[in-house]
């Protein structure tokens, strides 16, 4: 059983919804990333999505674009990101870490080399935004060979046939993008999300995480009522950006934010 599967099984047994924050590795400074990851876990995060900075983040809104730019000022590479995960694992062997980013850095490292090195560093899964199932056979095979979970996105426009096809390739969990648009955008329609999750659950037994548009305890609680995991990206990164001049305050601030989300999610009726 992978670390991700194990974590979802634990949460299910406890009747809780997973909280998954996203941060970009190296933002605003490489030294901040590992302490922040630990602080997120202390505050109540169950899994961590660690963004691999990329020069051309086509599916991201300004908040995460600027996070990538801040990290790239320090030349944070995929190798550096793996080193951060390795360091995180020295103190935390239980919290799953999923790398999230764009295909090209992985493509340049080579799929098999990436999968081997990522597994050795303690990474649990990979989500490449610009890699649909049509092109993913080779990459998912390499990930599986190293016991990494390939994580895929499902969109409001993904039809039932595609959902089935994607879920056949996916493991760990699937990530439902709750609205049409880029990260950090718009309003969340929980009823529509609930209706879509029903379709997805009819096609797969994998846990379903929901992201995009969750910015506070209230929206997290609404999504927690219908999803297996609540994924929070831009709202977390925004708080980091606000503290880029005093990065020492980032870990505690994010731990507090996780606590706020966690309490709201657990208090739902």
């Amino acid at each position, binding site marked *: 059983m992978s670390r991700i599967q194990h974590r979802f099984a634990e949460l299910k047994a406890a009747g809780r919804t997973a909280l998954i924050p996203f941060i970009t590795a190296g933002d605003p400074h490489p030294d901040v990333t590992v302490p922040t990851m630990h602080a997120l876990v202390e505050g109540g995060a169950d899994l961590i999505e660690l963004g691999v900075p990329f020069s051309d983040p*086509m*599916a991201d809104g300004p908040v995460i674009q600027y996070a990538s730019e801040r990290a790239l000022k320090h030349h944070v590479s995929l190798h550096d990101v793996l080193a951060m995960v390795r360091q995180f694992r020295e103190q935390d062997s239980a919290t799953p870490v999923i790398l999230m980013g764009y295909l090209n850095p992985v493509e340049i490292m080579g799929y098999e080399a990436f999968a081997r090195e990522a597994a050795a560093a303690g990474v649990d899964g990979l989500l490449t935004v610009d890699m649909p199932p049509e092109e993913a056979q080779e990459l998912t095979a390499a990930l599986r060979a190293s016991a990494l979970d390939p994580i895929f996105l499902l969109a409001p426009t993904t039809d039932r046939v595609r959902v089935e096809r994607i879920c056949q390739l996916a493991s760990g969990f699937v990530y439902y993008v709750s609205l049409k648009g880029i990260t950090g955008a718009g309003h969340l329609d929980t009823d529509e999300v609930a209706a879509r999750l029903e379709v997805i659950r009819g096609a797969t037994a994998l846990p379903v995480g929901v992201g995009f548009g969750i910015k506070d305890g209230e929206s997290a609680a609404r999504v927690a009522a219908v999803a297996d995991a609540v994924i929070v990206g831009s709202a977390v990164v925004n708080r980091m950006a606000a503290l880029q001049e005093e990065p020492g305050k980032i870990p505690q601030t994010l731990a507090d934010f996780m606590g706020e989300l966690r309490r709201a999610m657990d208090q739902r009726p």
Partner: protein
Amino acid sequence: MANSKFAELMQLPDGRGHFGPYGGVFAAETLMEAIGELREAYAKYKNDAEFQAELAYELKHFVGRPSPIYHAKRWSDKLGGAQIWLKREDLNHTGAHKINNAVGQALLAQRMGKRRIIAETGAGQHGVATATVCARYGMECVVYMGAEDIERQKINVFRMTLLGARVVPVTCGSKTLKDALNEAMRDWVTNVDDTFYIIGTVAGPHPYPMLVRDFQAVIGEEARGQMQEEIGRLPDALVACIGGGSNAMGLFYPFLADEAVALYGVEGGGHGIESGEHAAPLCAGKPGVLHGNRTYLMEDENGQIIETHSISAGLDYPGVGPEHAWLKDVGRANYVSATDDEALAAFHDLTRTEGIIPALESSHALAYAAKLAPTMGKEQTILVNLSGRGDKDIHTVATLEGIEI
């Protein structure tokens, strides 16, 4: 010709949009439905007689096709080698080849019921072409353009505004064409229901590289017939500049199976390949994935896209169409570069010798033709794609020469 070892190149891409290992669909799941819808619509209208008839009518009466070919006799004599002919895409309405594709995609958008058009632009030629067709067909138009390019191409920005388009400056990343493309993709993801994205070059997720090539192939189809009419045979070499590569692909495609016709794609050599400051992914880059397709890219050892440099905004792009990547690997086309200085010299040369002011993009093709011609016999022929006219570049050239207009 039927026996040509290259004939099968004309059958590409395959059903999944692949040219060998290149091309494909590397896009976010949010876009997959829209991409599929476009693929189906194009498959339907590609062979639809009514669609093709309307396209042909528009190309003739609105764009002004066929564009002539012209024997640059004085310039050829001066260079002292092969005879240089020019395919005059600069004489099209709006002054460049970009309009061929913009008309085609706008007609497709109409049939798909999409009333809102978005586009990215570098030099502004594709933006102007798109704004033009939107005015012509009464569609809403939003053009994304890098803030730096807006500064370099003020006249085209004003033209787009006159035509009723909204030009949105892109201030993230390197503030050039690639960032404008990123921003257009973000718009498309957000407004996917009513929006059609008119991509200006033979790149992006399948079916764009094929679709844009098909709409630009009118250049090569006309040129084949025109050369036969004028000199009784095909040219010995074709030369075209390459940013994303749409004018080159449009010229090359109908000649792919004609092995005796050498193909030269000329990239923006900037300050020279050895300087590292250039826009020549086919000459000096390596394969990777960006903007929906696998192709040659300008990238660092960690897979980050690096900033490009070219005197010409239209060539200032770190990627290139995937079909060119495959033509390079199989050896059907040669990819070379011309520096900023070489392009400028050719710009002046053609202007003074033939009375034709070429775009700085096309000047790169001319610069390479000027090198190639003296190595060939006087009875041989080079056809250069004069992809655009140089009016838009007058300010750039004047500034470089210390002249204030």
